[in-house]
């Protein structure tokens, strides 16, 4: 136990702090604006609809201490029924088409959809084929898209902000 506490103290706080808005690093500014617009927590359900898993790794990174997503009240939830926003990756494989549509149906309003990654935006390198429906918008309505292969965490965070701005 002692060693754990010691390690935590030595590591310090890595998340960039939220006060002193003008001088803030981008991560904190984005968090601040999202919080300001929403004024409440944001629940995200992530759906991998056919990705290579690269995008998922970067979405995971949003929860590391540098981006500290949960620390700002934005959290990933286990069921679409608890979600405000679906974060969808990958070209939608035909085998995931039905599951994605059902997840979308199960999501309550505002039912926001953020497509993440080149594949989600336009099918990426996989495109459309006998097995792939291509971009997410071919299967469910998309509100905002974040390109990149995979987009780094800061870009995904910017995407969440872009979506929040639309909710204003």
């Amino acid at each position, binding site marked *: 136990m002692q060693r754990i506490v010691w390690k935590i103290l030595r590591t310090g706080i890595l998340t960039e702090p939220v006060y002193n808005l003008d001088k803030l690093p981008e991560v904190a500014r984005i968090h601040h604006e999202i919080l300001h617009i929403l004024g409440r927590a944001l629940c995200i359900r992530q759906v991998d609809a056919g990705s290579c898993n690269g995008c998922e790794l970067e979405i995971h990174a949003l929860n590391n201490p540098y981006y500290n997503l949960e620390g700002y009240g934005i959290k990933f939830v286990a*069921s679409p029924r608890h979600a405000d926003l679906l974060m969808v990756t990958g070209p939608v494989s035909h085998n995931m088409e039905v599951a994605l549509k059902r997840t979308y149906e199960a999501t309550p309003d505002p039912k926001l959809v953020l497509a993440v990654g080149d594949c989600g935006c336009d099918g990426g390198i996989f495109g459309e084929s006998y097995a792939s429906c291509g971009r997410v918008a071919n299967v469910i309505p998309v509100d905002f898209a974040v390109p990149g292969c*995979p987009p780094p965490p800061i870009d995904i965070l910017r995407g969440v902000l872009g979506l929040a701005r639309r909710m204003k």
Partner: protein
Amino acid sequence: MKRERLRREAWVTHARALAARGGRLVALWGTERAEGRVLCAAYATPEGLQWAELPLAGEATFPDLAPVFHFAGRMQRALGDLLGLTVENAADRRPWLNHGAWPAAYQPLARAASGREAFADCGVIDYPFVRVEGDGVHEIPVGPVHAGIIEPGHFRFSIVGEKVLRLEARLGYVHKGIEKRFTQLAPLEAHRLAGRISGDSTVAHAWAYCMALEDAAGVELPPRAAWLRGLMLERERVANHLGDLGALANDAGLAFGLTQFSRLREDWQRASREIFGHRFMMDGVVPGGAAADVAPPMLERMRADGERLAKEVKSLRAILDGHAGLQDRFLSAGRLRPELAARLGVTGLAARASGHAIDLRCDQAWAPYESLEVRMATQRNGDVAARVSVRFDETLESLRLIGEICDKPPRGEHRVELQVPAGEAYGAGWVEGWRGEVFCALELEGGAIRRCHAHDPSWQNWPALEHAVMDNIVPDFPLINKSFNLSYSGHDL
């Protein structure tokens, strides 16, 4: 690599003879050539890689390899979905990759198929899972959309109380036609697709593809290029092990572990971006070498980073090892005994944690590993604790290797030009990725890709997970699953 043609009668006896002298099946796939369909298998033999072929001459069935190599079963079922080939007198006729996305008569990998066909809804195929009967037995279906941020797949648990009697996985949800897509790309471009087979193994898959292409083109890789690739592959191993160690601690209730390892991983990925231009080093391995060279100050930085990280990892290891609550969850959970691991043909990290000393970096002569003397990490217990321990050892060993590579990189070119052969050519690539052996078989014709089969070690290890979870309690499944951390995308293709 040796390519050998076999007759139908010899297909199984050949496999049996290989197995008897310690050979392993690496991959099984099908291809269509001018002569017709051909079944192919890659074997790891004491003498190296062997590519065996069985020309089918118009026949749609082939002899069953599953009695010799257990994990061949699912690959054989996939052959039915992709090329219309099935096992003689097959007992299990359920499709594997096709969930109703295309009609049974359509064969995506056949030459006649463009791969761009679009089918109206063919209806979801009913998939009968194996039922467990008995007093108090019930089923829990999980997926394809999971509760966490993970890839999609379906798990069917048959349980009594909270004990798992049987787990049956159904995969194929992220099948997006990668193997057909290969044939639409130029050979000098397709490494980008290989690098997107499984995002966490982008270096390993891209390297295997490039190795296959270089083999087919008869190109000798410059020593510096091999060392740069080695650097990237070891960095990829470290990044994944850091991520897994954090997630494993978290799944066992120690959030501190996730916080610590995820910050180390973030630092690591940021450095990869600065040095190789991409947080995962995607597209860093290119045909003929590495996309860019690394300047001496960066090599120095990598060495220093590695030393610092090794210290951090050691201090975290001491904390995790000394945490009674954590060890209580790790020890004896998800046990895969050495005999069973051997019978199932398990490979890579999971095999090493179950007492099997298999690591291509030690077993095969390929640059740069032949001059690095990799120390293999093994454990005998086969439980979650063993897989955690192997990850710790391998992380430290990779950091040592990175230091060695940065100390004395050979001079010279980091990339050579590669001429794609105009005629028919074959090549194979075989790389020890962080999860296990990644394999690639390539056929070229007229300067284009006729067939590219990419094989992820997850094929070998998925069936092992089903065994490892038996008799454990359902709430331990996420932990056990994470300790294998298998790829869905790499398997489904």
